[in-house]
């Protein structure tokens, strides 16, 4: 049983407070979705959980199985079982997907004390590549360099599948995916859920949620989660928009047009 607990989390970047008290608990095998207007702090939440040095946590805590994640460097968090699928994965020229994942896999599984895991790696990689609907040659390509938007996203899910995290945060994994790719990614995520991975899926659209059928949907506005519900909440949002939904709650809302 894995458990990610986010308690009253406040975080700032360059002195500006973005997260203003986030509370959220994700358990093994649960899919949580976070929706919210542009600039509400969704991506910041993802980066803070993974430990991006740009963000300063000013208050609150993040616990993984009771351990204080905020005191750890990003690589320690990864070895403890956290994973972040990036909205915009960076290019690492000259490093093949295979070489990168082999090293990541070894690093993550080293800490489990499982000893020699590398023998199984080629088969795990081969199966994972095919599971996300990519061609075998993908593994030989340079990490994210020259990837299409869809390939980058599939690549992130591929990495997640290989590394088998306890809790995974997926930041707009659905953006830029065509219908087939969305389906392949969703099938892979559902399979990983069945094996016990808990997920926090950040998205703007209901599309992926129809495939994933999340256990919880949260609405984030201005650095806080203002409403939580079942997956029907996503449908309500699609119909009424954020402004409509919030108006019903007595919250006035002005879209931050400065953010993308």
């Amino acid at each position: 049983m894995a458990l990610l607990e986010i308690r009253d989390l406040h975080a700032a970047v360059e002195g500006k407070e973005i997260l203003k008290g986030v509370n959220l608990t994700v358990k093994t095998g649960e899919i949580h979705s976070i929706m919210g207007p542009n600039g509400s702090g969704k991506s910041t939440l993802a980066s803070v959980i993974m430990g991006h040095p740009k963000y300063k946590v000013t208050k609150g805590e993040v616990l993984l199985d009771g351990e204080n994640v905020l005191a750890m460097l990003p690589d320690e968090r990864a070895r403890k079982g956290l994973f972040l699928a990036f909205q915009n994965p960076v290019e690492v020229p000259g490093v093949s997907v295979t070489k990168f994942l082999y090293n990541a896999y070894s690093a993550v599984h080293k800490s489990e004390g499982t000893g020699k895991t590398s023998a199984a790696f080629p088969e795990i990689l081969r199966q994972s590549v095919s599971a996300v609907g990519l061609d075998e040659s993908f593994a030989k390509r340079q990490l994210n360099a020259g990837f299409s938007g869809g390939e980058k996203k599939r690549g992130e899910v591929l990495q997640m599948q290989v590394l088998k995290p306890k809790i995974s945060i997926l930041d707009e994994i659905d953006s830029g995916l065509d219908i087939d790719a969305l389906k392949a990614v969703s099938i892979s995520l559902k399979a990983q859920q069945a094996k016990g991975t808990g997920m926090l899926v950040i998205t703007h659209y209901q599309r992926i949620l129809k495939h994933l059928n999340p256990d919880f949907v949260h609405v984030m506005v201005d650095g806080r989660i203002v409403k939580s519900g079942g997956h029907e909440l996503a449908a309500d949002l699609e119909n009424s928009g954020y402004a409509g939904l919030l108006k019903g709650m007595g919250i006035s809302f002005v879209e931050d047009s400065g953010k993308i």
Partner: protein
Amino acid sequence: MERAVMDVDRSRYEFKTKEKLSVKLEEGLTEKTVRDISALKKEPVWMLELRLKSFQEFLRRPVPTWGADLKGINFGEIAYYANPSIEKKARSWDDVPAEIKETFEKLGVPQAERQYLAGSIAQFKSEGVYYNLRKDLEEKGVIFTDMDTALKEHEELVKKHFMRAVPCTDNKFAALHYSVWSGGSMLYVPKGVRIDLPLQNYFRMNSGREGMFEHTLIVVEDDARARYFEGCSAPRYEEASVHSAVIEVFVGENADVGYTSVQNWSKNIFNCNTKRSLVNKGGKMTWIDGSLGSRVTMLYPMSILRGEGASTSNYNMTFSSEGSWKDTGAKVIHAAPNTTSKVVAKSISMNGGVAAYRGLLRINHGAKNAKSHVQCDALILDDISRTDTYPHNEIYEPTASFGHEASVGRISDEQIFYLMSRGLNESEAKSMVVLGFLDDVLKEIPMEYAIEFNRLIKLEFSKLGAVG
């Protein structure tokens, strides 16, 4: 994020050998020094004359000021010749004096010879102490020996080629070299003989204020093939030492020559070398240089493509860290039609190191359809390091085609965060980006070099974390 301090790991080279010397000339450079070296070696008169002419050239020329900072060299304080105490050059490691043999064993030289070399020479200070060549190659007429032996046993061959690719008037350090040269090696490959395994010479300096001036002559006749590999190291001393080699390579028609050099000199060494090849019709010359250590390195391997269809590739990798200034590049002259050249230079600077690319590309009028591509990429690992690029291109032939690309990159915080979020620690993440940066050079070089390079880079960067 805390930035881990990283540097090239030199621990493998940091041991000092207690030496017994039979001859060590007084420090300082005068005409007497030059004459003494020649006399000690019992050289023919023509060689002494070349030395004396070169010495005048050395005196006449000022220390160059257009590149790296050379003010730390005190020519008057350097020992120009020190001969290790050996009775004769050994053909078997068992005959090498114990303390010198141990030195090379620590550096892995005999082991490498057993595993993948066709022949090997080891030089300790001013003189070669060991040389060996596989029997079957010797029977085919291949000569691989230290330069002093070559001059004694193959005088005509040496005389025909010595100072014919690099004249003593080329630059101050070439003039210095020709005044006091000692050691080095000669490789001669007769027409049509193709050697698959590389031949190696390993150079070891062992004290401060020492000069090393080895001369390497590589003559590969028509339709022949050879790969030559050179390694250099020294333990660190406070006093500056000078390494000033000259490498002359003669590539026959349709011959194929590869020269690879990996230096990991200590940070007290001024490393100013002149390397040049003359490439005949259809010949192919490949230069591969990895420059890890030294205080200053100035090195611009040159190919003169003088026969139709001749080609050259030049792969150059440099690492500059604290207190290190690498001023390196490549020179190519296209002097015949249908000649092609390719230059790929990659530099990494960190911890305040300076890396400069300085190149010359000239396509002469009449070199019809000559093709050249130059790529120089720099990676800077922090804000206190520096990189500069000084390409110089002269194209006089209208049918020639020429391309130049240059880039300066940094390891971004986003890259490091991305890799760390997958479980790699910070130094592993940096190491991965660095090796990725070098990848398009590493994958271009022939397999036998790539293996050795990978091994060296992993060894040198082991503090960055192991990357497989």
